[in-house]
């Protein structure tokens, strides 16, 4: 066997041996984020290039004050980390984070700190670190324990029943941002409907449009996340969902996670 064939042959053989090990991603139970970590998004499009730590965005603070639609439709954030392509200039001009983080908007009786000012100096370091905090020990204005104390609890995710919290009036997410959101009429709600589970014995899913549209409106999901127009034409498998498609766009990282089966599979199985 000449050298030209020998080495590639060995290389291929060795690669085949270790190929399986290298590719193993599924089939194990990974670390579950702690309640205050759930919904955390790390954004690092340009931070490193600007010599700043990547941005850490906590969903729980923001979702208690705003509906999903305000940020993901009216302001225009994407639904995947890094996909929005936020730049300091965008923030400084009053877009994306800068829509509210402009030093002028008032929330909780205090002005909201400014994100990415046009001319940053060394004194601004503390302010920059409020967001650019990945790997740093930065004290937050908001404490998850204090925040979550009065709220009704659920399992998994943030450990909170966000739905019930809103029902009870303990949180009041805003649906409108002046100067940003177009003035809309009240929503014509679509009916709830059942989705048949493919697996025999699994309770059917009762999907509530009302519960979803209260926070999302229509265009957050349609057609980007749910493209099918006729019920029953698109099959949603748990494999796809756990990879972030359809329901998994929210129910893997921010809304209650997939491990909570009965939250969706609610229809009692007929005996």
């Amino acid at each position, binding site marked *: 066997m000449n050298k030209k064939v020998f080495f590639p042959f060995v290389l291929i053989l060795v690669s085949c041996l270790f190929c399986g090990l290298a590719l193993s991603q599924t089939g194990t139970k990974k670390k579950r984020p702690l309640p205050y970590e759930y919904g955390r998004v790390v954004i690092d499009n340009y931070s490193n290039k600007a010599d700043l730590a990547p941005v850490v965005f906590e969903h729980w603070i923001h979702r208690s004050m705003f509906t999903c639609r305000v940020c993901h*439709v*009216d*302001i*225009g954030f*994407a639904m995947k980390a890094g996909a929005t*392509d936020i*730049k300091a*200039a*965008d923030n400084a*001009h009053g*877009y*994306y984070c800068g829509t509210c983080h402009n030093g002028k908007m008032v929330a909780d009786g205090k002005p909201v700190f400014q994100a990415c000012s046009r001319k940053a100096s060394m004194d601004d370091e503390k302010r920059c670190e409020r967001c650019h905090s990945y790997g740093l020990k930065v004290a937050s204005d908001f404490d998850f324990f204090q925040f979550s104390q009065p709220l009704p609890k659920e399992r998994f995710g943030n450990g909170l029943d966000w739905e019930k919290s809103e029902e009870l009036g303990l949180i009041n997410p805003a649906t409108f941002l002046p100067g940003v959101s*177009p*003035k*809309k*009429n*009240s*929503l*014509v709600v*679509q009916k709830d409907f059942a989705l048949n589970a493919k697996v025999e014995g699994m309770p059917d899913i009762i999907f509530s449009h009302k519960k979803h549209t209260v926070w999302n*409106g*229509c*265009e*957050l999901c*349609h*057609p*980007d996340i749910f*493209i099918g*127009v*006729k019920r029953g034409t698109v099959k949603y498998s748990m494999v796809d969902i756990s990879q972030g498609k359809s329901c998994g766009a929210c129910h893997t990282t921010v809304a209650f996670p997939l491990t909570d089966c009965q939250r969706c599979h609610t229809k009692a199985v007929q005996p």
Partner: protein
Amino acid sequence: MVNPTFFKGKFFTARLVTTTVSTTIIAALLFLGLAGLCAVPAIGEPSASAAQADTTQESWRTEFDNVCAKTEDAMTFSQEELMDLIRRCDTLQPRIEKLDESRKKVFLERLRKCRGLYAYVLDAKTKEKN
């Protein structure tokens, strides 16, 4: 009948020069006047142009807000109304593409979502009819 001696001698030359100068002056005055008349519609008065620019600036935003405020009612519209909204979105797109980087990025995405929803609902209604 002009006297032939009219065109001879120093006197004639002086008179010719005077005539040429006055002609030039009159012609120049006429030209400026004409140019002035044309310029007003071309350039416009300073205050009028600023106002015009303002309305151009804000009009795309007003149109955007008008078109995309209706997404929550999308299911109640007829197919013609939806097609009209989609057409208005398509008209808005080139106007938004001319904006600065930040606004272009934000509003193109918002427009895409808004147009996408109308197209989606139109598709649903069309399939339902058939």
